């Protein structure tokens, strides 16, 4: 299972990359593997504002649905529209093309509360 070193992680299995005050958010490889083949992604609307921990999106496979939480607070500035037609991007490339939404972060220090790759890896099952 891959866990890129340069990202921040939430206990609820989201990842964040932070650049120029914009946080890109997706779900981890572990999360997608537990949900199996995704068939639908419910994206947030651009312009809505989330607090850290708010329900922001829903990912669904044939028999499962799981909430995706905003790991940091702020305004949604972009969503990955490609997921509407190709939710499998999350299965195939969860840390890349499978990103879900971008948030203009209200307070960058919020990522300090998130885990680094090593701590996150300890949370996940060891194969």
């Amino acid at each position, binding site marked *: 299972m891959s866990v890129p070193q340069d990202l921040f992680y939430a206990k*609820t299995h989201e990842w964040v990359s932070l650049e120029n005050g914009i946080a890109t958010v997706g779900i981890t490889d572990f999360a997608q593997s537990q949900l*199996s083949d995704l068939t*639908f992604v419910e994206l947030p609307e651009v312009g809505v504002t989330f607090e850290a921990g708010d329900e922001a999106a829903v990912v669904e*496979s*044939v028999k*499962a649905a*799981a909430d995706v939480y905003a790991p940091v607070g702020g305004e949604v500035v972009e969503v990955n529209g490609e997921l509407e037609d190709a939710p499998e991007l999350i299965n195939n490339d969860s840390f890349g093309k499978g990103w879900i939404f971008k948030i203009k972060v209200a307070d960058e220090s919020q990522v300090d509360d998130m885990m680094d790759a090593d701590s996150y890896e300890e949370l996940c*099952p060891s194969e």
Partner: protein
Amino acid sequence: MNAWSVQFNEPVPYQEGLDLQRRLLKARQEDRIPDTVLMLQHTPTVTLGNRGRANYLLKSEEEYKALGIDLFHVERGGDVTFHGPGQWVMYPILYLGGNEADSHGYLSNLEEIAIRTLGDYGIKGFRREGKSGAWTDVGKIAAIGFRLKKWVSFHGMSFNVSNDLMGFGTIVPCGLEGEPVATVKTILGEECPDLPSVRDSMLNHFSTVCNRELERFDADGDLPAELKSLF
């Protein structure tokens, strides 16, 4: 790992069961209770999952009402299904986001519980590629649909024991046209085991497959204090 199960002897109205699941979900997310499995039957109900399409309902809302069948749109994965007395419904409220998560995945574990339970009664159950649930030569016996919130599961699996299949005749089960639904009774007839026996079998297999030792409670009996306030 230790977990609790709570069983109901009388059919529970769908809304009541859903409200209870939501209270347990919240308590589990906040770590106020351990993983907890509900085992119950519902009064006659048709439910549509998140992506459930209304054209799989073969009756109007009024007709369902006239038949005494409740109709619900629910937040679980999966399509359309029917619940009624004689069918066990297993709602595991489990934290699946930690390092105890099973790499086979939760969906596969639920299927395994159903297949092993069928095996206890000499019935060959199997998976079908691309279709979830547990199947037999004469039709589908177990249907699955669940939701994760903060990586705690709710909703779950239904398993047909001796329920009247009339209810399934009012829908296209799971949106699978031309796929028959069966019960244990369809296969075993008079030899069909009683409901408590099947319930115990399912809970035993839950323990093994999901690797959780169960401390079992009766909904009408003495419950642990942490649960009592939620029932």
